[in-house]
């Protein structure tokens, strides 16, 4: 709908004002990181110089370690989900036997059942598997949480791929596994894209799961680290907390800017197909 109605000037101005108000907290956050201690608690004062001390304090070993952990867990969780859910979604979409139907509904119920109640048994399970306080555990937990949504997404996209493709590949002597990874999986790229674009933020920004299942600072991700920073150093200056918050947000912001165009498209496909 490219030639839809134009907005009136008044409406455009109202929208611009609203948009600026929405951006204000972000701008405020960034401004705070440059305010020297003397004016830090004067909320209406803008920084009058580029005060970089908070960033120097924030950019310590702790930050880079947490950044690395967050990156590992995010990429690990997304990759493992894509790996197992693409296969599962494909199988669920192609087979209509009873067993597959049961798993279809089992996965579907996973989209409704919240994980709050399961946290404690999970904690016990993780302890008995010697997975507590490991990044691998978080990768598994995120994957388990994403499997229902991702499988449905892949199942929906598989429907639009003609069966003849697999049949002809089979006749050519291509096994099921190779057929899937060489022929089908590349065609499911839009599903993969939609999944990454809509769920990368969830892992990166998650606070509760690492808070419960990780306990050493060696393994900690960015969000719980920020909260620990707040709770440990409540009496002292908040400057470094703000600086870490900006730094933790920056990679996502970059990702967002780079993928923004596809994001809207991805959401459309996710909601139409899903």
């Amino acid at each position: 709908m490219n030639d839809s109605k134009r907005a009136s000037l008044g409406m455009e101005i109202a929208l611009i004002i609203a948009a600026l108000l929405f951006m204000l907290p972000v701008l405020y956050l960034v401004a705070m990181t440059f305010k020297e201690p003397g004016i830090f608690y004067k909320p209406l004062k803008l920084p009058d110089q580029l005060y970089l001390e908070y960033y120097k304090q924030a950019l310590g070993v702790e930050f880079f370690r947490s950044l690395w952990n967050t990156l590992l867990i995010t990429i690990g969780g997304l990759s493992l989900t894509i790996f197992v859910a693409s296969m599962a979604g494909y199988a669920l979409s192609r087979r209509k036997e009873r067993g597959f139907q049961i798993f279809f509904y089992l996965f579907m119920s996973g989209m409704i059942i919240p994980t709050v109640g399961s946290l404690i048994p999970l904690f016990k399970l993780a302890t008995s598997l010697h997975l507590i306080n490991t990044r691998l555990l978080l990768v598994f937990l995120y994957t388990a949480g994403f499997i229902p949504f991702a499988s449905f997404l892949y199942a929906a996209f598989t429907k639009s791929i003609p069966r003849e493709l697999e049949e002809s590949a089979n006749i050519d002597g291509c096994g099921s596994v190779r057929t899937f990874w060489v022929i089908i999986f590349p065609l499911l790229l839009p599903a993969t894209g939609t999944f990454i674009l809509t769920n990368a933020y969830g892992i990166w920004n998650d606070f509760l799961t690492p808070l419960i299942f990780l306990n050493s600072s060696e393994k900690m991700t960015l969000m719980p680290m920020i909260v620990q920073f707040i709770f440990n150093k409540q009496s002292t200056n908040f400057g470094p907390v703000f600086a870490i918050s900006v730094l933790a947000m920056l990679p996502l912001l970059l990702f967002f800017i780079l993928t923004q165009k596809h994001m809207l498209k991805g959401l459309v496909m996710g909601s139409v197909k899903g």
Partner: protein
Amino acid sequence: MNLKRKQVVAASLFLVPAAAIFLLFFYVPFIQSIYYSFTDWSGIGAPTFIGWDNYLHVWKDPHMTEGLKNSLKMAIFGLLVQNSLALLVAISLNRQFRTRSFIRTAFYLPVIISLVVASVVWGQMLQFDGFINAVLNQIGLGAITEDWLGNVKTSFPSIILLTQWQAIGYCAIIYLAGLQAIPKDMYEAAEIEGARGFSLFRYITLPMLMPAVSIVLFLTVVGALKLFDLPYILTNGGPGTSSYTLFLAVYNAAFKENNYGYATAGGIVLAIFIVIVSIVQLTFTRRKEVEL
């Protein structure tokens, strides 16, 4: 027949990894939690079976009941205010104008910011000597300044308004996606039939938007029930129990008081609410979609 059998085996093998991870890390703990919810268990030693006691206590515990009330308030606010504002934003963004992509980005920007970072900024802005009160003083509204998060009356309303900062943009983008999926010739046909303005919205836009509406309503209500990060970091449920949510009450019962059996019962109650909401929402919106 043999080929079919081979295909079934292959497909089963495709399903196994996902099914194994899902069952082990999602379903088994969920089933276990149902058992634990009927026991008195502190995490150490064997759980003792106590029947429905935990479930009866949930309704007498002010943390849980206040948390539930707050979640309901937030859900109602979300349905009425957030939903309409998001739709308004989406309809405006669906028009043509120069600054459109800037405005779309601005509205969506808060969505990608974590609740932790949002708490850091807003916690500072809402302090008694923070930005909000300073602005109020500047424009002569000093009389209504408040310790927004430290006051029984304003703590949870402040948190609700805070959630709007992210929720409006998110829902607006879903609505926008829904609006752009409506074929343009439907409007043309309706205009030829003589439909104008509001009746176009009422008879074309709204029914066609129902799938998006159902997604947004669901996300709003479930989001209200599951809200945790903001009250945990900003107020820890206080002052008193004024800003508890059900999720926070469950978390505190489990990890602060080590009352695991009771906490899982709270978790199950929460789960039941979410399941009820999902079913009501699905049947309701599905009927609406059919009406078209």
